[in-house]
């Protein structure tokens, strides 16, 4: 068969080497981009809408971010502890900067400023929309319709336009007027109430630290856009309107919670850092810090590690490793081990064993016993880890505006058309001349006038 000759003729290269060469982030720019020539207008703010468009920008789409003149969108003004900013915010406001809350949600894009409220601004958006493939917005439902920039008006100008609205609760139904943010999506969608330490562990519901409902919601929107692009270009030739409610997305990911509630009336509760379906498969505390002399409180706190030995064989080896013969017989069977009471006995025993160790000590011992484990790494440990650096998951980029910047890489890899990171962001309106000259026919004089009027 063809496959046999192919294999025997293949160069003798290990599978790992093959993968390393195929997915090498250094080779990204030698390969084509999947969405070359696709133009996306991103009339978005905060994270949900912006991130959706930026995933398409990673794939090579020409994404044009449109935001309010001068100060830009709200997310530019958020940064952790109000400390780090990237300057200038815009050429008009060089003494202020863009906060790091903006980073990650707007990479590779072109930045144009347009005031949506003014007819002159609305006409500019229409000129751009006539030449675009995708339109992403996340203002309150109906706002763009009122500005004559909604799906009904834009699809009349450009029937091939794929219009993606993203937001909290959706534009119809009893809660349609409600504003939303990521953390509200988490709260009301259901994953917030299940996450965190249980009552008996002394805890409360806990939020996912990332803006999960936003960033992952934007990703779901991008999935839907890619499917719609395929359908348009391969089958129908026509655009569509799409609605993504982030709270709906969260409810979609509740695993067994809804079937269990529907059938048995049981409400899924919090279970801390352990797992409800597998044991041992939980995060335990190690008594010692890995960096006891560090001045950074994030480093000198105790270590934590995920211990994963849920199969009977692995659990037996784990019991041997920690020297507990009692558990080995009492909880030899997975079904017995995973019961709540058993978990409440097993994990404290593991923590007792780990009380005089660092997370690296525990990892070394478990590695030798061939037991899966994963130390809980902080952001520095992740950023400086050779694994993530080699894979380009976290990478230094030579940003044209801001210099030597550490940035997340794309979240997945493709052999022929890899997504890539080109730049992190730009100041507000930095591409006014390029984009509005190219697509709306504005002369430098027009642009100067509109900038002076703060229309762009």
């Amino acid at each position, binding site marked *: 068969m063809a496959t046999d000759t192919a294999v025997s003729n293949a160069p003798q290269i290990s599978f790992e080497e093959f993968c390393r060469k195929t997915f090498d982030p250094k080779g990204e720019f030698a390969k084509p981009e999947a969405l070359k020539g696709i133009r996306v207008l991103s009339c978005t703010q905060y994270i949900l809408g912006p991130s959706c468009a930026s995933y398409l920008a990673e794939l090579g789409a020409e994404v044009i971010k449109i935001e309010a003149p001068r100060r830009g969108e709200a997310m530019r003004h958020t940064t952790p502890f109000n400390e780090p900013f990237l300057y200038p915010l815009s050429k008009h406001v060089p003494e*202020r900067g863009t906060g790091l809350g903006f980073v990650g949600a707007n990479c590779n894009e072109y930045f144009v400023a347009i005031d949506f409220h003014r007819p002159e601004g609305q006409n500019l958006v229409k000129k751009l929309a006539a030449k675009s493939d995708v339109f992403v917005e996340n203002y309150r439902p109906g706002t763009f319709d009122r500005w004559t920039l909604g799906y009904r008006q834009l699809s009349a100008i450009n029937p091939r336009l794929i219009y993606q609205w993203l937001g909290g609760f959706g534009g119809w139904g009893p809660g349609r007027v409600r504003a939303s943010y990521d953390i509200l999506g988490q709260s009301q969608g259901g994953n917030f109430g299940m996450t965190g330490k249980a009552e008996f562990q002394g805890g409360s519901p806990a939020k996912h630290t990332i803006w999960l409902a936003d960033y992952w919601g934007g990703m779901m929107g991008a999935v839907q856009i890619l499917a719609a692009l395929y359908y348009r270009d391969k089958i129908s030739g026509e655009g569509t309107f799409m609605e993504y409610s982030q709270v709906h997305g969260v409810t979609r990911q509740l695993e067994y919670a809804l079937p269990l509630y529907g059938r048995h009336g049981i409400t899924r509760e919090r279970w801390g850092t352990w797992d409800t379906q597998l044991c041992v498969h939980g995060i335990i505390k190690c008594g010692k810090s890995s960096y006891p002399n560090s001045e*950074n409180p994030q480093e000198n706190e105790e270590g934590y590690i995920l211990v994963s030995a849920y199969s009977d064989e692995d659990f037996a080896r784990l019991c041997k490793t920690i020297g507990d013969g009692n558990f080995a017989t009492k909880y030899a069977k997975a079904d017995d081990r995973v019961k709540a009471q058993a978990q409440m006995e097993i994990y404290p025993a593991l923590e007792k064993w780990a009380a005089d160790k660092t997370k690296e000590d525990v990892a070394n011992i478990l590695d030798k016993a061939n037991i899966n484990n994963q130390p809980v790494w902080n952001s520095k440990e992740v950023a400086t880890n050779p694994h993530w650096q080699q894979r380009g998951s976290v990478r230094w980029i030579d940003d044209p505006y801001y210099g030597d910047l550490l940035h997340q890489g794309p979240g997945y890899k493709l052999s022929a058309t890899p997504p890539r990171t080109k730049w992190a962001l730009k100041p507000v309106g930095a591409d006014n001349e390029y984009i509005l000259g190219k697509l709306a026919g504005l002369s430098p004089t027009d642009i100067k006038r509109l900038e002076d009027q703060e229309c762009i």
Partner: protein
Amino acid sequence: MLLTCPSCKTKNFLDPYPFWNFKGTTQCAGCKKIWRLETSNGTCVSAPAEASGKADLLPGFAETQAYEGISGPGLTRPAPKAQKESVCKPKAIKRNVRGNVIAGYPLTKNDLVGSLAKFMVAGAK
């Protein structure tokens, strides 16, 4: 809950998560008097009573009636920090963690070419 010290009127901020359901002692960050209190669902069950000994849990933050902040070791609980000190104000960052140039500090119009800092145009080193 807000504990206005009966003795010195310092506003002690007993932050909601640890103090929502609490039984024990805390210490006024202004006059260091120890107060025994019991809360249930965020509400004081009984008025704070003067006590002695070491406080079970310090306030998160406190301030005087004139809005002067009071915090520090022995007065309030330490705040979570991303490094040794948090200034909680915009920092001027000219070199990044590996010593390279980064546009992390306020500029003036004279520093710019278009929207770009001159030192970036010149080739940051």
